[in-house]
């Protein structure tokens, strides 16, 4: 049975290492924070200017001056620090953040990522995604294997405008875990009951190895 959103988030949490500074994107990546191992010391960075992001507030704790990069109200922790946008992106661009887990519209077999616009249709902007993929030490993508029309989102070449070129290290989809390697995508793990044959049938990108 392929993974659901929560399974994918739980699998992505295995990418964390004790002591990591991590930036989580909007959507499924946000769910990863629910699966952080209890004995791990993980600090979440929010690129609007906060290190050490806490859980959502109770109704009484809501503070309009305290939001995350998804514009959601959040809380602070004892370890929290606040800083300006240029400082926030200095730590991102400067390679001080260990891991970023992001969503995607398309990923190519060479690690290109597209997740910021569909020309003529959807023009939202890249926010901090281009800076994150260019600067963070390791980039893991969580996304559905196929789009709503059933077409593979793991492609030989992205059709949409890129967020970054050759920036993706690992992709977690509902079908499994894939690494970007020399000649294509390498299967690291399959979701329960998912076969290599199914993956090959549902993936446009080159799958290497057996």
């Amino acid at each position, binding site marked *: 049975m392929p993974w659901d959103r929560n399974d994918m988030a739980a699998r992505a949490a295995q990418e964390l290492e004790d002591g990591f500074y991590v930036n989580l994107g909007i959507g499924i990546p946000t769910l990863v924070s629910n699966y952080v191992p209890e004995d791990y010391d993980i600090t979440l960075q929010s690129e609007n200017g906060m290190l050490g992001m806490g859980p959502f507030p109770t109704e009484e704790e809501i503070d*309009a001056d305290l939001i995350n990069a998804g514009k959601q*109200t959040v809380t602070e922790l004892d370890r929290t620090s606040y800083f300006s*946008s240029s400082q926030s992106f200095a730590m991102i661009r400067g390679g001080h953040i260990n891991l970023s887990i992001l969503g995607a519209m398309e990923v190519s077999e060479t690690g290109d990522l597209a997740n910021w616009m569909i020309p003529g249709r959807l023009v939202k902007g890249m926010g901090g995604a281009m800076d994150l993929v260019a600067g963070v030490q390791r980039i893991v993508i969580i996304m559905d294997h196929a789009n709503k029309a059933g077409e593979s989102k793991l492609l030989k070449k992205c059709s949409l405008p890129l967020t970054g070129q050759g920036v993706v290290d690992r992709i977690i989809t509902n079908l499994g875990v894939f690494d970007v390697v020399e000649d294509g995508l390498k299967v690291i793990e399959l979701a329960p009951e998912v076969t290599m044959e199914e993956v090959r049938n549902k993936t446009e990108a080159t799958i290497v190895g057996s």
Partner: protein
Amino acid sequence: MKKVFSSADEALNGVLKDGITIAAGGFGLCGIPENLIAAIKNSGVKELTIASNNAGVDDFGLGLLLQDRQVKKMISSYVGENDLFMQQYLAGELEIEFNPQGTLAERLRAGGAGIPGFYTATGVGTKIAEGKEIKEFDGKTYVLERGLRADLAIVKAWKGDAQGNLTYRKTAMNFNPECATAGKITIAEVEEIVPVGSIDKMQIHTPGVYVQRIFAASHEKRIEQRTTRAA
């Protein structure tokens, strides 16, 4: 020289002209100079270029300036919360220059610091790098981005004093310190003007040299995504 003004209208007196570039602090609706934006709307000034991470929502923040088509061009990283923006953009009535969020922040920081350009890996191999100088350093590819200055910067701080010293609160800081440095004229709206000397001198985020005008006002502080957990 007197820096303290009584209202947004008074602080903007003589500063607004059609066609100027304005740098506006804030992230989403958090830490936006909401009184200055409302006053700019009422002034009727038009053909504005605005550098701001977001464009507000349809009926609050910078979205207010779109209602009467006062904006010619936005320099932003994300405009996804604003339907009016999307409509005007797709109809070709509004220009947008998308800047990655960190690049926008650094462009303002650099501009304010007298640095005309800087190289960053952000955007290499994407539309963002098209037409810009590309250069290799130590085997890695970077794109040249320009420092950004504005005719006017509008910022929101928590507390300020008559010297223009500012301190921000939590994530309402965001782009405000960078915008404050990038303005040829910077106007700060604060929740409270406190006596000079009463802000801890080690906690001043924006030193007064960057701020030409300051006023106190009340703030609605609208919340975009009210997310809570059970108590």
